[in-house]
């Protein structure tokens, strides 16, 4: 099944969820829960917390599906944003479970098998982000990618990459501003 078919089926299912159709939520769950559970687990680093948050995520989808606008966001991006925000909020509210292994810039290699995952739908968007990231210093792009995937604060990232807090803030902030200019073009 093509990427566009996946996307329009998910858009259709979300439209039905917005109409209060419980069975459609089951379709959304069937097609996206493994991806979203992976996202929650990566941030929370704790299966039982991740399971709790996954429940919150789909309850949010159930209640807020009508606010999803397919003209402004892809369905997977919208769902991933909910999963990340819920996970990070939970992480900030609790002390444990934080991912704190040291990050080595050289370790960050993209796995082509994962990139080809069935839910990858915005190939163009992905290429553009990667092209823009290549214009940053490697340590800047490493810090930005780790922040997104692991949900670390500036303080935690500074500790993981063994640099002073001020240095980390300035890497990421300058990196984000540069990234924005590039992504906007």
């Amino acid at each position, binding site marked *: 099944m093509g990427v566009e078919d996946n996307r329009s089926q998910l858009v259709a299912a979300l439209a*039905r969820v917005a109409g209060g159709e419980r069975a459609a939520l*089951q379709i959304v769950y069937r097609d996206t829960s493994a991806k979203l559970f992976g996202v929650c687990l990566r941030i929370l680093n704790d299966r039982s917390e991740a399971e709790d948050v996954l429940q919150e995520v789909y309850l949010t989808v159930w209640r807020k599906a009508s606010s999803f606008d397919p003209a402004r966001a892809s369905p997977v991006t919208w769902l991933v944003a909910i999963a990340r925000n819920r996970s990070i909020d939970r992480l900030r509210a609790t002390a444990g479970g934080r991912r704190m292994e040291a990050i080595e810039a050289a370790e960050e290699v993209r796995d082509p098998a994962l990139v080809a995952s069935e839910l990858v739908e915005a190939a163009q968007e992905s290429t553009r982000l990667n092209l823009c990231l290549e214009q940053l210093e490697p340590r800047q792009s490493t810090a930005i990618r780790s922040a997104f995937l692991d949900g670390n604060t500036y303080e935690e990232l500074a500790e993981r990459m063994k640099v002073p807090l001020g240095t980390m803030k300035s890497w990421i902030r300058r990196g984000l501003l540069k990234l924005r200019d590039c992504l906007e073009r």
Partner: protein
Amino acid sequence: MTDPRTPAQEEADKLMAAEYVLGVLGAEDRRAAQQRMTHDQAFASEVAFWEERLGVFADAVAPVAPPDRAWSRLARAIRLPDPSKPRESLWQSLTFWRSFAIGAAVIAAASLGALTFIEIAPAPRAALLATLGAANGQPAFVAAVNADSTSLTVVPAALLTQDPRAMELWLIPAGDKPHSLGLIVPGRAVRIELPRELTGRITPDTALAVSMEPPGGSPSGQPSGPVIASGKLMRL
């Protein structure tokens, strides 16, 4: 929040939106950002910009199947019918939907009286009927399929805001993608001839949805704008 901002403030705002999406903010700053999104449109758009662009990082996260109990728990939370008692649950839900649909049909009939021009009156006996609810839970349209499933009459059940965009009606058979049924006109009843290839797909599992589209309808053939109302067909 329409005060003019200095370029420096604008840059600080943009940075905060990016930091929020990236996830580097602490609990307090996150709450401030979330609060701000509810009333500051420019800030919310900036957050949406980053969510869409950075979201592709998540491609690198390997899917992990959640345990089966996660779905059971969710199904209980949204009160999906218990699979051990399908008949009773189905009957309950049909009764609920039927009364809801009849109520909505009465509202629709009442609003018909207020219309200055009624192009085509709805079929007197509907084989299938759908109430298309808006996000606020209020019925926005009522759709009735005629007895031989060759046409559909759509009646607005509520006054909708004046939006310059077109409204497009979609038919979504269970497990299939949306099929366009063409544009509908807010404020009056319209009859739509169903394409022959779809007449066999009109079953109680089929959903109808209305989306906002550019003039002339969605360019892609699939819904491209927000869905403003949707609902399922049911037998009366």
